[in-house]
């Protein structure tokens, strides 16, 4: 006997899983703080442990991403565009990938970050992680947005959060310029290849904030419809 044929009408909502996914990818990016602490002290073994943590988080996020995609087949009636949700999850996932790449590259080359820029680098990194945190906060408003039918005050609240996210991203841009200038002053004393890669790392850390902003932009588009 089955009376639940009717209850097949209710599909699994993608909202909570998307929130859990961004929380996971943010965790991956936030773990970079810990990672660089060890890198600065050249504690390569501990750093490797933390890198493995980040890789695990990235893999978990990958699995979550796949699950969400599978549960979003065509023929669902959603409060927002299905394509928007799929794009959002793709962007979110890139944060974890980037964190993994950064840690992997540093470990692979056992890169030394010159002590002159360590402090500023850490502030810069922490600001970029602020951006992923802010993106995570905004995405975690999705269930509240669903409660309010994606309209009204809650939308305004989320839009404010996204303005804040943009501001953080701009901060990181300026910090990046400053950091590169500092690096340029000391690059002569460095192994040229190391210097090249350090520029690359600075860029990638900035990418964390860029992707976070793109996640926010996706959310904004979703709300604009």
């Amino acid at each position, binding site marked *: 006997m*089955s*009376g*639940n*044929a*009717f*209850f097949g009408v*209710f599909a699994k909502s993608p909202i909570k899983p998307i929130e859990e996914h961004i929380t996971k990818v943010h965790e991956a990016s936030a773990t970079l703080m810990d990672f660089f602490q060890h890198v600065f002290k050249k504690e390569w073994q501990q750093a490797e442990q933390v890198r493995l943590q980040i890789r695990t988080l990235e893999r978990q996020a990958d699995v979550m991403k796949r699950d969400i995609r599978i549960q979003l087949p065509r023929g*669902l009636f959603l409060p927002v565009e299905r394509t928007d949700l799929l794009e959002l999850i793709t962007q979110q996932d890139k944060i974890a990938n980037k964190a993994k790449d950064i840690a992997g590259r540093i470990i692979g080359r056992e890169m030394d970050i010159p002590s002159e820029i360590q402090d500023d680098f850490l502030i810069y990194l922490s600001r970029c992680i602020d951006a992923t945190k802010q993106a995570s906060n905004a995405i975690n408003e999705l269930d509240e947005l*669903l409660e309010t*039918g994606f309209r009204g005050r809650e939308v305004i609240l989320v839009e404010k959060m996204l303005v804040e996210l943009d501001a953080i991203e701009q901060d990181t841009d300026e910090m990046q310029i400053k950091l590169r200038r500092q690096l340029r002053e000391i690059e002569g004393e460095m192994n040229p290849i190391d210097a090249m890669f350090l520029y690359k790392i600075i860029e990638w850390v900035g990418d964390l904030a860029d992707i976070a902003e793109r996640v926010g932009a996706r959310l904004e588009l979703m709300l604009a419809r």
Partner: protein
Amino acid sequence: MDFIASYGTMLVLIAAAVGFFMAYGIGANDVANAMGTSVGSKALTIKQAIIIAMIFEFAGAYLAGGEVTSTIRKGIIDASYFTATPDIFVLGMISALFAAGAWLLIASALGWPVSTTHSIIGAIIGFALVAVGTDAVTWSKVGGIVGSWIVTPMLSGIIAYFIFMSSQRLIFDTAEPLKNAKRFVPIYMGLAGFVMSLVTITKGLKHIGIHMGTTEGILLSVAIAVVVAIIGKIVIQRLKYDPKADKEMQFNNVEKVFGVLMILTAACMAFAHGSNDVANAIGPLAAVVGIVANDGVIGAKSELVWWILPLGGIGIVIGLATLGKNVMKTIGEGITHLTPSRGFAAELAAASTVVIASGTGMPISTTQTLVGAVLGVGMARGIGALNLGVIRNIVVSWVITLPIGAFLAIAIFFILRTIFGI
């Protein structure tokens, strides 16, 4: 008239047994649909849902089930064509019951969401077509009924949309959602109480011998609504709220308030379901009993025999208590993607639509109406995800149920005729 005279008691017993079985099937299967929204949104435990369903299904069947029963009993086919052959009419009604019951059994086993209403009406039309011909079917009435199957889901969808939007405007999209929830939820409760009591008072009470004028009925309904609202307010004030569970918008606690409201709308839903669907099981039975009691004379203005509505009500309750429990359990473990504020909008809209249809004697499908209401809330962007494919399957199974019900009734009708030799 020998046939009726000699087999009368036996025919009534057969019809009562099959009617009871149908009611049992409705209780086992359909009630879960009506109550599932409350269980699925975790506003009610399974045990609570079953107790509420038992009380209000029975109350709905007994107090407000009469109108639809009389439609099925004498509205769909023109009984004057059977004046000379009441035996055919009686056998036909029994065939219709058998056919609808059998089809429900098959469909349930296969997991298809068929409508009991569609089955029984298809079956009655089927036997009338072969017994007399197209003339015997009151096509205007049937047209109205089939039309209502399209209109009622749309109507309940529209009502659900507006109830949901009103709750958004009054509660969710405000500076203090919790405060407004405490203020407005009792009003929704009063509204639910008003619709239910109005239909019961104006349409149901005459079966138990109480007659009341329209004005008195409305006044009494308003009084009941006020009482319901006050009780609701007291319950809501006594709730424990957890200020820590909340972010800026207080929605967790707001949903708690709606959880209280959902207990009431679940009761309404059970009441509405009982009032409309009991007729599917006992309408044909009532027809059989009416003829046998009048010694085969059709058309005599007969009141509904007193024991028929309670029989249907008890059948539903027993079905629910035995098999329905399991169905409810699977639902309770299944969906959680529905918060009480959404479930309430869907249930209140569906319950109001169904109970009004019951009042006007329209046999409609409760599940269909509920699907319409759920879609209405979905249109207002209130539900995480709905499966359009499943909705399409439901619609298809409804459409094919009519001819299948008719076909089965025809087959069983011929078998019974052969057995009884008429």
